[in-house]
């Protein structure tokens, strides 16, 4: 919405003085008060604000935890217990941080699926979308390294499995793994560098979030109708108070869910094995990543070849960045694309089921006929992986060419009026 001009009027002498030197109040006013948002946004659009809250909550709790944590293989586990037992409200900080990571991912997955349903990645929002994929990647790296810090069994073995993936790279794979570890196994140097990076990456996320919001404010928000703003007076409303109060309400509702886990079920989303001190000589029966990585873990294990699995796993995330060009439909919103809608929901179910396969032992029987195994977990994951990629490389490119979309409203104002008439 580059045509949107600043409406800030400095009222006092001090404001005028500052505005002429550093127009920071103007910037805040233009981006958080007068910024025009489409008037038809639904509650799926509140997750951006929720994610901002989660990022800040993770940084604040994390900074406090670091004051009491010791990044050393002999003391890390004990220092976490020290936080839980001896630090004032340490249990709250730690449980909020650990569950906060899960809440962050719940919110980001809803945010991503919302973008995919309403075509938020399409022109002119490609860069906005790609920045989002970058944030998602950084989040995954941050969460992975954070999970290693308590130095429990899953910390250690998760780190071992994931860093070992790089050994699949031909020729230079093994030297890369040694370089990542800082030695010949996951050990103190690994813990130290993961700690350092776990503290650094959130601030990088913060930086990319600024770019993400900048891009958003430049092109303007997509909306459920998927039509661009044509008439500011009719199609948009000022961010404050309308979006502000709606976002706040949604955020507080989300915090109730967050609080439910922190106070009443703090270990539900974690893994019991991580309360056992890391032991390099004892492999847990099943090494399972945190729930938010399970779909990708499912894809990794679906490919029998190690390098192939690693490539498929990274490709499953990287493909998101190409979404703006893979989807050939001119229509943004899934609301007006009846066939797309069906495939979108299949894609959601496929993603969930991939997560399920990632959580189960690979040799588990999924389907058997007359005592003979017809389909095991790996086979099931292979079918789902094929469906996952087919959505991007077959369904979306072809659908745009063959699908007959429904009539798209002429403007956002029309979309709102149409809704209220029903």
């Amino acid at each position: 919405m580059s045509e949107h001009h600043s409406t800030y009027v400095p009222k006092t002498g001090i404001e005028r003085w500052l505005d002429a030197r550093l127009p920071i109040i103007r910037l805040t006013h233009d981006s958080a008060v007068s910024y025009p948002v489409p008037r038809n946004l639904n509650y799926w659009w509140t997750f951006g604000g929720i994610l901002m809250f989660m990022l800040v909550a993770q940084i604040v709790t994390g900074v406090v935890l670091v004051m009491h944590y010791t990044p050393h293989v002999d003391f890390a586990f004990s220092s976490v217990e020290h936080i839980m037992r001896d630090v004032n409200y340490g249990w709250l900080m730690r449980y909020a941080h650990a569950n906060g990571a899960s809440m962050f991912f719940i919110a980001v997955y809803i945010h991503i699926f919302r973008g995919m349903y309403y075509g938020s990645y399409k022109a002119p929002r490609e860069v906005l979308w790609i920045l989002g994929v970058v944030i998602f990647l950084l989040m995954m790296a941050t969460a992975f390294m954070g999970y290693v810090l308590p130095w429990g069994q899953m910390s250690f073995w998760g780190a071992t499995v994931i860093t070992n993936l790089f050994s699949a790279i031909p020729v230079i794979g093994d030297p890369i793994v040694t370089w990542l570890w800082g030695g010949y196994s996951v050990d103190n140097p690994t813990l130290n560098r993961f700690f350092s990076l776990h503290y650094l990456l959130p601030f990088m996320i913060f930086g990319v979030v600024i770019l993400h919001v900048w891009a958003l404010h430049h092109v303007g928000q997509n909306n459920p109708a998927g039509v661009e703003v044509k008439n500011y007076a009719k199609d948009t409303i000022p961010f404050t108070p309308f979006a502000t109060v709606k976002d706040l309400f949604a955020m507080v509702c989300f915090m109730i869910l967050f609080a439910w886990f922190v106070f009443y079920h703090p270990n539900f989303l974690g893994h019991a094995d991580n309360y056992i001190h890391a032991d390099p000589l004892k492999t847990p029966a099943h090494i399972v990543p945190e729930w938010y990585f399970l779909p990708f873990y499912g894809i990794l294990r679906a490919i029998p070849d190690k390098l192939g699995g690693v490539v498929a796993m990274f490709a499953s995330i990287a493909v998101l960045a190409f979404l703006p060009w893979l989807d050939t439909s001119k229509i943004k919103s899934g609301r007006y694309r009846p066939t797309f809608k069906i495939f979108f929901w299949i894609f959601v179910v496929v993603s969930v089921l991939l997560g399920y396969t990632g959580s189960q032992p690979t040799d588990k029987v999924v389907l058997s006929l007359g005592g003979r195994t017809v389909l095991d977990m790996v086979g099931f994951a292979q079918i789902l992986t094929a469906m996952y990629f087919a959505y991007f490389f077959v369904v979306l490119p072809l659908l745009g060419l063959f699908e007959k979309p429904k009539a798209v409203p002429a403007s956002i104002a029309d979309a709102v009026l149409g809704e209220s008439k029903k």
Partner: protein
Amino acid sequence: MMIKSSRPLMAALAVASLAFIGTPALASGGTEHPPAQKWSFSGPFGTFDRAQLQRGFKVYKEVCAACHGLEKLSFRNLYQPGGPGFTEGQVKTLAKEYKVKDGPNESGEMFERPGRPADRFPKPFANDEAAKAANNGAVPPDFSVIAKARTYERGFPMWLIDIVTQYQEQGVDYITGILTGYGAPPHGEKIEDGLHWNRYFPGNKIAMANPLVALFDDAGKAQDANFYTDGTPVTREQVAKDVAAFLMWAAEPKMEERKQTGAKVILWLIVLAGLLYFTKKRIWARLGDAH
């Protein structure tokens, strides 16, 4: 407005976002799931039963402590709020029974002195090698967080229902199960030397001999009917539950504070959400849209 058309989206995403919880597949083959017990500390308003924690501590001290440490705990924890509720005096007396290594003193010597409330529970073995030497090559696990470190697979759809019911007592149910699950192996099962049959142990073959033999004869009758001084009947199940409850507190000493804070926080958030909802409605009414 969009709420109607978004309902399937909401449902699918709720499932999508919560569907995968890594479940440690502890149960293998013929291992049974331990039965769910009733616990005073379950649910949003649960609190520890002080008398039970005191009894459980007695069991720990007289049965488990010879092999299993409690190294993250200090004696002082025993009189902190939300715990077994011993008095400071009782804990001081208790701590004195232990010998604690301290030093070096002015002449550079290490020395032993009676324990103080601020001391951690001394470890049962000098080091892991000593522990292995005394226990057939295995280190008996420390008990500080054992109640959170043990679980069994809940399976679908139980784990989903657990979100609402707040069932999270797998650890204590498992411990109770192990302590009451010893018995003769089923017909046709061979058991190697140094292993013992247990219904609830993953794989059924556990290295630890039934620790409660010290308290009960073969018929399950208490050796000392007055083992408990508060009149609680001394049965296998009771003893197992008491020590499991004590270990839950040891693993989660701030549980009561946590749940009580949670009730206030969630109540406050619900009120705030209500106020914001009506504020939002009022503000959006200015638009005249169907929002």
